C-alpha cells in the first residue's frame, strides 16, 4: 500500500486544493486560441444581419424586401410575416412577458428587430439591409418612465389583450408599511432623497452572437452561442421551436465576458435558428457594437424616492418608492417570485426597526432589459440607495459616515439575522471588516489631508460604503426562472487511473471555472487539480442547471461539486475497507487517502481505489463497480457576502473632472477557493463600478433616440481612469455552504458606486453646498452640481 510520502507535494504554487493556482484556461487565451462564437466557421454557412427600427415608436405600414432579395448574394429575407407561419413571431422573455422576434404591427423601441437578411457573407448581408424599404408611421414615444402611467400616455403594449396602460407588472411591495410609519413618527431625524440609478449597459467586450445549424435530415439543431445559461436557453428554444430538448445541443465555448448581458434569449438568436431551419444550412449572426448597446439587455434604470430616519443616533426606518423602467418588453432577469429582483435587500447591513419598499414597473419606448449587470438581481440598486441614504443621514446628523455605520451594523451575535424585508443573512462580522478598510485607507490621515487641501482650495472627497449582498440563487422552494428551479447539477467521474472529469452546469465567461472547480475536487479528493478536467458549456455533456449570473457559480455549482466529491469519497471509503480488509468505520481520511486508524501505514490512495473500482477484484457487497457520482444541489439559503469600501477622489475645481485616486476594497466572501481569482474578480467589478459612477450611461432624447450606441459615447473606463485598487479581506465562513464559501464576483460592482458618489459629494458639500448628485459623475454633471443646479440624467 502506498504511504503518505507518495502524495504529490502541495506548495503555494501548486496547491492540492485551495490556493493561488494559476489558471488552466490561460494556456489558450494567451496564444489567441480561445474559441468565441465568431471564430467558428462551418461548411456552407450563411451570414445573417438584422434590420432595426430607426424610430422608438411607430406603426409599420409596409415592408418591401424585393430589392434586397434581388441582391445576388442574398439567400433570404425574413420578416414577421414569415415568422408567423412558423409560429416564431413572438418569444417568451425570462419574466413571463412576450417579445416580438421581428416587429410586425409596430416598433416599440429604437433598434428593435424588423427584418433578418441571410446572405453568403456578412458584407453582403449588411449591404442588403439598406435595400429593404420599410414605411413607418411614427407614434408619440413614452421616454420618461415617470410619465408612462399618465392617462394620455400612448399604450405601448397594445399587442397584449387587456393592456390599457403602461404598467408592466403589478405593483410590488415588501416589508411592513405600518411599522415603518411608526418608526418615522417616532424618529428625531428624517432625510429624504430622490435618487436615480440610471440606465447603463454591461457591454461585454465580445458582443452577442450565434450559429444555428439545423440538420433537416436528422432534425438535430446544433447551436454555438455565448450565453450564461445554456441549459435554460435550450429549454426555451425547445418550447419556441417545438423541438424536443434532446434534439437541441448548445455549445458555449469561450465567452468574451457576459456580466448579465448574455443571460437573455435575444431575437437575433431566434432569427438565426428560424433561418437555419428554413435554409437547412448553418446560419451565423453576430451583432455589432451598436446593436449590442441599442437592443440587448440594459441594466438598472430605477427612479427611487427614499426616506431614512433615526432616533437617538440609531437608524430606525427606511421607506422606498421606486419606478422601474423596463423598456418595451419586460425581460428583466430575476427569479419568478421577485418581480423587483432582490431589491428589498435595501435594508442593507443595518439593524433597522422597520422598512417598506414599493416598486412600480412600467413600459417605455426603450430597449428591453433590466438584466443584472454584474449583480444579483437589483441588489446593486438596493445597495446604492441605502448607502447613499445612510451617508446623507450621517451628513444631516453631522456624524462621521463610518461611525454611524459602526453604530448601526447588525452585530455578529444576531446572525443568522432576519431582516425587516424577510431575508435571512447567514453570517457576518461587519465591524471587523469596516475596521480593516479604515486601517488600510489610513482614514484619519485622509481626513487630515482633506482638511489641509480644503484650506488650499483643493477638492478632495472620501466616500464610504458597506454592502451586504444575497447571492447564489437559489433554494428551489423560493426561486425559479420560467418554472425551472435554480439548482445545479454536478457529475464526477473518477477514471481507473485516478484522473477525474467533473461536469458542471455553471457557465464561465472568464471567471476561471476550469481552474477553481478542479480545485474543489482536488481539495475534497486530495488529487492534483491538473488531474481534474472541468467540463462545461455543452448541454450534451453537462448536467442540467441554470448557469452563471448573480454570483451563483460558487454558492450553487461549487456546492454541487463539493457534495458530489464527498459522495465519491464516501464510496471510496467502502471500497478501501474491502481492499484493506477492515470496516469502513475503522478508516480515517487524509487528503487523497483512506488509512487504517491506529496503523497509518495501511491505506489506499484514491488512484488505487479507483483502479480497484474498475478492476475484476471484488467490490463491497451490493456495490456497483466504478467511482462516479452525480448530484443536484439545492442550496438551503443564499450566501451573504459583504464588504467595506472606501473611495478617495480628487476633483479639478476648474474642469470638474473627478479622479478616483485610491480605492480600498475589503471583501468578506467566506472561504476563498482561489484567492488570485477572487482578487481578479474584485478588480474587474471595481473597474465597472468606476465606470458606472463616472462614465457609463445609456440616455435618450425626447423622441426616444438612444444617445449612447457606440463606445464613442458609451464610455468605459480604461487603465487611466482606474486606480491601483487596494484590497483587503476578512474571512467569515458561510455556515451552510459545503465549503464555507460565498459568491463574490459581483460584490465590487455592487459596493463601489455609492462609495465613489459619496466621495464626490464629500468633496463638494462644504465648499459648494452639494447635497446630492446622480450618476454618472461626468465633468458636465459635476460642474452643474457645483453651480447649484444638479440635473438628473435623461
Amino acid at each position, binding site marked *: 500500500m502506498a504511504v503518505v510520502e507518495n502524495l504529490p507535494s502541495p506548495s503555494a504554487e501548486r496547491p492540492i486544493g485551495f490556493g493561488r493556482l494559476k489558471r488552466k484556461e*490561460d494556456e489558450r487565451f494567451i*496564444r489567441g486560441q480561445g474559441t468565441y462564437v465568431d471564430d467558428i466557421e462551418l461548411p456552407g454557412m450563411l451570414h445573417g444581419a438584422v434590420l432595426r427600427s430607426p424610430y422608438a415608436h411607430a406603426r409599420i405600414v409596409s415592408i418591401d424586401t424585393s430589392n434586397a432579395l434581388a441582391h445576388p448574394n442574398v439567400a433570404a429575407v425574413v420578416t414577421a410575416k414569415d415568422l408567423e407561419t412558423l409560429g416564431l413571431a413572438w418569444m417568451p422573455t425570462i419574466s413571463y412577458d412576450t417579445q416580438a422576434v421581428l416587429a410586425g404591427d409596430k416598433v416599440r423601441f429604437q433598434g428593435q428587430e424588423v427584418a433578418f437578411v441571410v446572405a453568403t457573407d456578412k458584407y453582403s448581408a449588411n449591404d442588403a439591409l439598406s435595400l429593404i424599404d420599410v414605411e413607418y408611421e411614427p407614434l408619440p414615444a413614452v421616454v420618461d418612465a415617470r410619465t408612462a402611467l399618465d392617462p394620455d400616455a400612448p399604450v405601448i403594449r397594445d399587442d397584449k389583450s387587456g393592456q390599457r396602460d403602461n404598467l408592466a407588472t403589478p405593483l410590488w411591495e415588501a416589508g411592513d408599511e405600518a411599522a415603518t410609519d411608526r418608526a418615522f413618527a417616532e424618529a428625531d431625524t428624517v432625510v429624504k432623497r430622490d435618487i436615480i440609478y440610471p440606465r447603463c449597459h454591461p457591454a461585454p467586450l465580445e458582443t452577442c452572437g450565434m450559429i444555428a445549424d439545423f440538420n433537416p435530415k436528422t432534425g438535430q439543431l446544433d447551436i454555438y452561442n455565448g450565453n450564461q445559461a445554456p441549459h435554460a436557453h435550450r429549454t426555451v428554444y425547445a418550447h419556441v421551436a417545438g423541438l424536443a430538448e434532446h434534439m437541441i445541443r448548445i455549445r458555449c465555448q469561450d465567452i468574451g465576458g457576459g*456580466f448579465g448581458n448574455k443571460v437573455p434569449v435575444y431575437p437575433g438568436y431566434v432569427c438565426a435558428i428560424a433561418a437555419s431551419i428554413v435554409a437547412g444550412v448553418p446560419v451565423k449572426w453576430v451583432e455589432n457594437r451598436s446593436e449590442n448597446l441599442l437592443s440587448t439587455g440594459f441594466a438598472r434604470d430605477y427612479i427611487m424616492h427614499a426616506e431614512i430616519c433615526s432616533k437617538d443616533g440609531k437608524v430606525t426606518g427606511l421607506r422606498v418608492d421606486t419606478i422601474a423602467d423596463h423598456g418595451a418588453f419586460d425581460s428583466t432577469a430575476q427569479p419568478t417570485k421577485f418581480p423587483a429582483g432582490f431589491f428589498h435587500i435595501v435594508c442593507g447591513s443595518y439593524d433597522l426597526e422597520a422598512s417598506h419598499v414599493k416598486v412600480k414597473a412600467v413600459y417605455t419606448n426603450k430597449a428591453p432589459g433590466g438584466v443584472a449587470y454584474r449583480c444579483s438581481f437589483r441588489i446593486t440598486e438596493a445597495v446604492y440607495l441605502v448607502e447613499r441614504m445612510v451617508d446623507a443621514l450621517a451628513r444631516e446628523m453631522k456624524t462621521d459616515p463610518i461611525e454611524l455605520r459602526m453604530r448601526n451594523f447588525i452585530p455578529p451575535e444576531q446572525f443568522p439575522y432576519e431582516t425587516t424585508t424577510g431575508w435571512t443573512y447567514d453570517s457576518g462580522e461587519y465591524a471587523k471588516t469596516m475596521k480593516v478598510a479604515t486601517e488600510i485607507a489610513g482614514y484619519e490621515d485622509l481626513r487630515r489631508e482633506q482638511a489641509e487641501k480644503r484650506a488650499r482650495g483643493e477638492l478632495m472627497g472620501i466616500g464610504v460604503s458597506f454592502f451586504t449582498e444575497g447571492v447564489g440563487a437559489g433554494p428551489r422552494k423560493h426561486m425559479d426562472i420560467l418554472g425551472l428551479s435554480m439548482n445545479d447539477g454536478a457529475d464526477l467521474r473518477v477514471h481507473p487511473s485516478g484522473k477525474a472529469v467533473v461536469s458542471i452546469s455553471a457557465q464561465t465567461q*472568464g471567471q476561471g471555472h476550469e481552474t477553481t472547480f478542479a480545485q474543489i475536487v482536488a481539495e475534497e479528493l486530495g488529487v492534483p487539480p491538473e488531474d481534474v478536467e472541468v467540463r462545461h458549456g455543452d448541454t450534451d455533456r453537462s448536467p442540467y442547471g441554470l448557469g452563471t449570473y448573480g454570483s451563483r457559480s460558487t454558492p450553487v455549482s461549487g456546492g454541487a461539486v463539493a457534495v458530489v466529491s464527498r459522495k465519491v469519497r464516501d464510496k471510496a471509503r467502502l471500497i478501501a475497507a474491502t481492499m484493506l480488509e477492515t470496516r469502513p468505520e475503522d478508516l480515517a481520511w487524509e487528503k487523497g487517502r483512506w488509512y487504517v486508524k491506529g496503523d497509518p501505514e495501511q491505506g489506499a490512495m484514491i488512484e488505487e481505489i479507483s483502479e480497484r473500482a474498475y478492476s475484476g477484484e471484488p467490490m463491497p457487497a451490493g456495490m456497483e463497480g466504478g467511482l462516479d457520482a452525480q448530484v443536484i444541489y439545492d442550496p438551503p439559503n443564499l450566501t451573504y457576502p459583504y464588504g467595506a469600501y472606501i473611495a478617495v477622489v480628487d476633483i479639478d475645481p476648474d474642469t470638474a473632472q473627478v479622479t478616483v485616486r485610491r480605492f480600498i476594497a475589503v471583501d468578506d466572501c467566506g472561504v476563498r477557493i482561489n484567492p488570485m481569482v477572487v482578487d481578479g474578480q474584485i478588480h474587474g467589478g471595481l*473597474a465597472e463600478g468606476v465606470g458606472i459612477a463616472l462614465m457609463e450611461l445609456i440616455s435618450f432624447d425626447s423622441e426616444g433616440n438612444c444617445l449612447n450606441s457606440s463606445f464613442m459615447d458609451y464610455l468605459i473606463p480604461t487603465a487611466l481612469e482606474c486606480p491601483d485598487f487596494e484590497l483587503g479581506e476578512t474571512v467569515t465562513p458561510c455556515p451552510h455552504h459545503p465549503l464555507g464559501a460565498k459568491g463574490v464576483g459581483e460584490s465590487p460592482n455592487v459596493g463601489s458606486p455609492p462609495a465613489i458618489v459619496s466621495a464626490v459629494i464629500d468633496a463638494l458639500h462644504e465648499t459648494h453646498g452639494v447635497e446630492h448628485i446622480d450618476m454618472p459623475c461626468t465633468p458636465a454633471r459635476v460642474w452643474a452640481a457645483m453651480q447649484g443646479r444638479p440635473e438628473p440624467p435623461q
Partner: protein
Amino acid sequence: MNVSMTVNGERVSHDVEPRMLLVHFIRETLGLKGTHWGCDTSNCGACVVLMDGEPVKSCTVLAAMCEGHEIRTVESLESDGELDPVQQGFHELHALQCGFCTPGMQMTARALLDRNPNPSDEEIRTAISGSICRCTGYKNIVGAVRWAAEHESTTRQEA
C-alpha cells in the same frame, strides 16, 4: 483588388474587396482568429495588431492599406515553443479572465516594451489606455507588463 503583405513573417497575397477591413482579412481570409473584434469605432482595442512594429486597430485599417507592410498578430508571439515574456507575464499575474481583450493587450504591451524596455506604471497605463478590458480592472495587466519587462531584460542580459 490584390493585396500583398507580410503577416507573421510570411508573405501573403490575396484578392480582396477594396473596402475589406484588415481585421476581417486577418480573421477570415487568413483564418487567424486570435485577433478579435469588439467595437467598430477603434475604441476597444480587441483588434490591435502591429503594423511595422506599431500598434494599430485593425478594425479601422483597410487591408488594401497594408500593401507591402509588415503585420504581426498574437499568433506570432510564441516562437519555437517559447512564450513571449508578455504572454508569460499575463499568465503569472492573472492579467486575463475571459481572454477576449488579451491578444490586443499583449500586442500593445509588446510594442511598448520594444520601444521602452523599462516602462513605469504610468507609462504602461498610458500605453494600454487605447484598449478596454471589462474583466481585470487593469491592475494585473499593469503588473504583467512590468513582469515581462523585468524578465525580458534578464533574458537579454543573459543573451
